[in-house]
């Protein structure tokens, strides 16, 4: 969480300083949710398809920070080699597909990864997970993917980050139910709702859902209420978010809540956290510096091939 926040703050400044082109999309305020998911998964076994606001989940799942900085900065050495940018990255063979922009489409992809494991007899004890926003639940892809996963009774966890807005669009222009958890029954899947600003509650709910899926109870929906504490992208000031909402419990910073919970429970002291913060800053500095030293892709060396087999274009 802390690392993700630190990294993302840095990415934001790099973007604002013109060092990152295209766009930067952050998960500020959603780190507790995302990290809870990543931390509940087992790297090397489970599959995880992160979405826009999942830096914390990526880190918790074990993504190398260099993958993030290299992809944002367009280094040829990143997993996307400058061909795709920012959050559109992954290492599919390490269980983490690289999202395309079209929302909702990852639900069926991650399901397919699980079906492959089932067919190969490797599904036992495995979980697949993906995140999605409140807005993206309006896509046909989300519906088709979740329904298919339910029919196949796959060990899939779909985490809905209901951050009250899709870009500028408030939830009442997006759906008409009270809570998106009300969708679970209609898909015949399990579900749990959590306060996404509360780290302990979120982690507990997430582990419950992941465990249910792991034990064979089929897809699980985790619906978290929270607020994104940044713009849709760093070009956006989110001025459409009403002040009352920012001031409400939903507007709490999960990082602060989490810190006090950790201290309260005696898991760490404020000093420990300060040390972690410094370590995170150092780690981020180094990952950024490394990526910045690296070259971008050389157009003249590109093979400009969209198929792996030669002669197929």
């Amino acid at each position, binding site marked *: 969480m802390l690392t993700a926040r630190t990294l993302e703050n840095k990415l934001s400044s790099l973007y604002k300083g013109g060092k*990152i*082109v*295209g*766009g930067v999309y952050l998960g500020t305020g959603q780190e507790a949710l995302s990290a809870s998911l990543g931390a509940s998964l087992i790297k090397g076994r489970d599959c995880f398809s992160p979405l826009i606001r999942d830096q914390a989940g990526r880190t918790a799942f074990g993504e190398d920070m260099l993958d993030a900085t290299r992809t944002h900065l*367009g280094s040829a050495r990143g997993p*996307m080699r*400058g*061909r*795709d*940018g920012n959050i*559109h990255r992954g290492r599919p063979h390490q269980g983490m597909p690289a999202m*395309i*922009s*079209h*929302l*909702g489409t990852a639900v069926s992809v991650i399901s397919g990864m699980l079906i492959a494991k089932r067919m190969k007899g490797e599904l036992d004890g495995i979980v697949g997970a993906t995140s999605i926003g409140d*807005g*993206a639940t*309006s*896509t*046909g*892809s989300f519906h088709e993917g979740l329904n298919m996963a339910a029919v196949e009774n796959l060990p899939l966890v779909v985490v809905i980050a209901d951050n009250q807005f*899709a*870009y*500028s*669009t408030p939830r009442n*222009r*997006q*759906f008409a139910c009270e809570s998106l958890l009300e969708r679970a029954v209609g898909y015949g899947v399990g579900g749990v709702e959590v306060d996404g600003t509360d780290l302990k509650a979120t982690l507990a709910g997430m582990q419950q859902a992941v465990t249910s899926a792991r034990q064979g109870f089929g897809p699980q929906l985790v619906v978290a209420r929270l607020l994104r504490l940044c713009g849709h992208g760093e070009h956006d000031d989110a001025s*459409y978010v009403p002040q009352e909402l920012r001031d409400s419990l939903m507007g709490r910073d999960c990082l602060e809540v989490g810190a006090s919970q950790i201290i309260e429970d005696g898991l760490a002291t404020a000093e420990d956290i300060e040390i972690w913060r410094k370590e995170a800053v150092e780690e981020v500095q180094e990952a950024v510096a490394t990526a910045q030293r690296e070259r*971008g*892709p*050389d*157009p*003249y060396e*590109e093979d*400009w*091939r*969209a198929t792996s087999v030669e002669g197929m*274009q």
Partner: protein
Amino acid sequence: MSVTYIDAIHQAQLELLREDKTVFLYGQDIGDFGGAFKATKGFKEEFGPRVLDAPISEDAMIGMAVGAAINGMRPIVEMQFADFSSVAFNQLVNQAGTHYYRTGIPIPITVRMPCGGTPGSGPFHSQMVESIYAHYPGLVVVTPATVSDAYQLLKESVQLDDPVIFCEHKFLYRWLKSASIKGDGLPLGKARLTRAGKHATVVTYSAMVHEAVRAADRLAEEGWEIEVVDLRSVKPLDIDTVLASVARTGRLLALGEGFPWGGVTAEVVSRVVAEGFHLLDAPPLRLNAKDTPIPYHPDLWAAHRPTPESIVEKLRELLNL
């Protein structure tokens, strides 16, 4: 005072909304927020229920527009990015595109498609879509390259009784400025001779018109006079204007920013050779983007799409044939 391409789109919609109560807007974040590119800024305030924020449901957005058009409205749908219209592909080609032929009832919907590449936009925020929609019967596909065309063609599109895929180029939004929004009044369906010449014709559309002109400028320094034809709409495709130009120059380069297999450039070349083979003094050539997804990195992106340099190079090849 100068007007940008996006201003022109804004102004056209404003006038359409004011002049015709059956015009309404539907799209993601187009209400109070004014749209991802601010093309609808201020409309919610003035037109209230005629400016509707859509859920992230491109398929339903087009289906809804078709239904509304059946019942007498003239919806303008804003895709947030043209790339996302792939999700609405079925409703566009099979619902909207077939409606008039099947039922005899025209469907006056206009779908605004923010198209084309800008540095760093990557594979899913840079696509050109004119070629896939023009392939299907029943859709009109408009591709303005200038500020005044963005204004005038959008107005004509919305006033047209048939479904229009309106391809706006994002790169032109703020970069392209003009002293006036008023153009030469050329109607939808007519191509424009953007630049006169006599040694070769470049037929193109949308943002590539400007790259072609740049390439022509460079070659002019060497004495080559390159004619540039701006198609303005790729369906209908004004082959007469193209043929007239080829008749003058004897040489054709079809230029586009889309993927290289099929598409506008292939259609242009095929029609020219079928109808004007004898006019050609050299093989007609094509220049498109490369046959890979559109890369994120600006250096790759610049090499992926045609540039003034690569157009000049291709024109040299053509002039030497």
